[in-house]
């Protein structure tokens, strides 16, 4: 790309902007990440490895993976349903529903966690009733799943609504006139059209589900080996001055984050290409 002389910024401006950007990246993004790995590995690979394989850490990884495995598919499903309802039908209260979708983004995760405690805690009527049936939600896995579900709800729907709005419903109508049933329309027409957007939303949802701290912290109860997710486990290790172990476990999260970024970048290019038409 060439920029004409008349619109090009003076050399010192370019130099300054590039320097600021690079320094900022180095200071606030690269250095902390490097530090996480460095701190974790400070006392050698063995200690690093031990922090990972210790039962409490393994339990935390397991719980996090379980939570994510439940939350991401459910939110993908809810997201598609919500985006479908909002973009393909017209009904009363649609605008309200769209603004409501942003609620989990708008309120603090801690409050999101508190809502569930106040709603389902063992001293509330509903919690008591569930407790009577032997179901425990708060300070247990279901609570963690619920809180994560709530916090990550908007990702998929937010990604799909503008996409499906732009695509309109003519293709679906065409499929109907050609004799397709509802499910056939969805599988053969709608889903391929939103595939990349959906995956992109799921990756974002996944990243947030793994890393969620606030809401989960409130409903978890921090029972070691039982209701600790990876971020909670890291926090406990850190507050016990077990710095090396906490950074070692943190490096798992950083590693997962890096994978997410690569996946996201790859999906973005696929997404762009798909939107421009070309074969997929």
């Amino acid at each position, binding site marked *: 790309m060439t920029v004409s002389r008349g619109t090009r910024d003076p050399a010192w401006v370019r130099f300054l902007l590039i320097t600021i950007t690079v320094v900022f990246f180095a200071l606030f993004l690269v250095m902390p990440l490097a530090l996480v790995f460095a701190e974790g590995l400070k006392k050698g690979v063995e200690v690093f490895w031990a922090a990972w394989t210790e039962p409490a850490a393994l339990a935390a990884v397991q719980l996090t993976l379980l939570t994510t495995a439940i939350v991401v598919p459910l939110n993908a499903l809810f997201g598609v349903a919500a985006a479908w309802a909002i973009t393909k039908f017209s009904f009363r209260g649609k605008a309200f529903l769209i603004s409501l979708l942003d609620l989990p983004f708008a309120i603090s995760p801690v409050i999101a966690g508190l809502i569930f405690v106040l709603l389902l805690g063992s001293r509330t009527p509903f919690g008591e009733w569930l407790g009577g049936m032997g179901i425990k939600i708060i300070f247990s896995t279901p609570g963690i799943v619920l809180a994560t579900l709530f916090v990550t709800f908007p990702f998929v729907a937010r990604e799909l609504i503008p996409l499906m709005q732009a695509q309109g419903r*003519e*293709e679906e*109508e*065409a*499929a*109907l*006139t*050609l*004799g*397709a*049933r509802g499910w*056939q329309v969805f599988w*053969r*027409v709608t889903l*391929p*059209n939103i595939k990349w957007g959906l995956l992109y939303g799921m990756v974002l949802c996944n990243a947030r589900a793994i890393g969620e701290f606030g809401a989960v912290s409130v409903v978890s109860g921090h029972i070691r080996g039982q209701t600790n997710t990876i971020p909670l486990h890291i926090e406990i290790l850190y507050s016990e001055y077990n710095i090396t172990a906490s950074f070692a476990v943190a490096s798992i999260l950083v590693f997962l984050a890096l994978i997410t970024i690569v996946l996201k970048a790859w999906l973005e290019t696929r997404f762009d290409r*798909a939107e*421009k*038409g*070309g*074969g*997929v």
Partner: protein
Amino acid sequence: MSIEVKNLTKSFGAYKAVNDVNLKVGTGELVALLGPSGCGKTTLLRMIAGLESPDAGQILLNGEDVTSLPVREKKVGFVFQHYALFRRMTVFENVAFGLRVLKGKDKPPKIQLEERVNHLLKMVQMDWAVKRMPSQLSGGQRQRVALARALATEPKVLLLDEPFSALDAKVRLELRRWLRKLHDEIHITSVFVTHDQEEALELADRIVVVNKGVIEQQGTPEEVYDHPANAFVHNFLGNVNVFHKRDHEGAAGVGFVRPHEVGLGRERGKPTDLEGVIIDVRIRGPQVAVELAVEGYELPIEAEIARDAFKALGVVPGDRVFVDLAAVKVYAEDYSI
């Protein structure tokens, strides 16, 4: 297969898009629903297809009431204004779609399916593009593929919603003639919606003029063009001079006369001829448009005559001529577009 629409009504909120419409389309006919945008013609077409449900009234296909049948059971072919091709499928898969979603014994075996799709693509002259994606085609090509796709399931009725309006003028003309030819070959009962009177006049066996949710007139292109039933139809079909006029009894009315119906002469041809002065002359291809100030008329009147005839007349702006306005038709003043 014939189409019959009885007392069909549809409102969007307080707005009556289609108001108590009755319409019959005979087997093998090619009918145009013609009207200005927002007149309800597309809503009417979508209701026949089942894409919109009527508030009241009936739709019959071959005498059978299909009003409440879901779209997929109506088995009508539908062509959309913006093609609506499946963007993630090749041209082949687009056309094959209607056959692939068939169930059980209706589903054709692979070889037959391929034969049928290839045959259709050849018919619309798109057989060279089987492996292309829709985004790689021009508008005219996409609409041909959309047509092949609509015909794949052998519908008995073909509905087209402004099929050519998104195309540029030259392609539109070409595709229009090609569709007429195709219809003469396969004789499928067809209804198309258009706001382009030229398209309707050239393409249709019969024109149904729609305005504000009701049918103003229906008939052959000659009937609606030469004998418009009311002021709206007269004004909507073709160029027209409009002027306010009092008839013999003195009642107010609107007068219409098409430019080519205005006669010009150097001598008084008929006792009713009026005197006028030529204001301006413009060449319009083989025709000449002559703008005239005529005695007793406030606004200038346009006449259109052949270039040879104009040359023979030998007049220039400023000359006095005699104007024959005998073809003026006066309607009671109670319409608006």
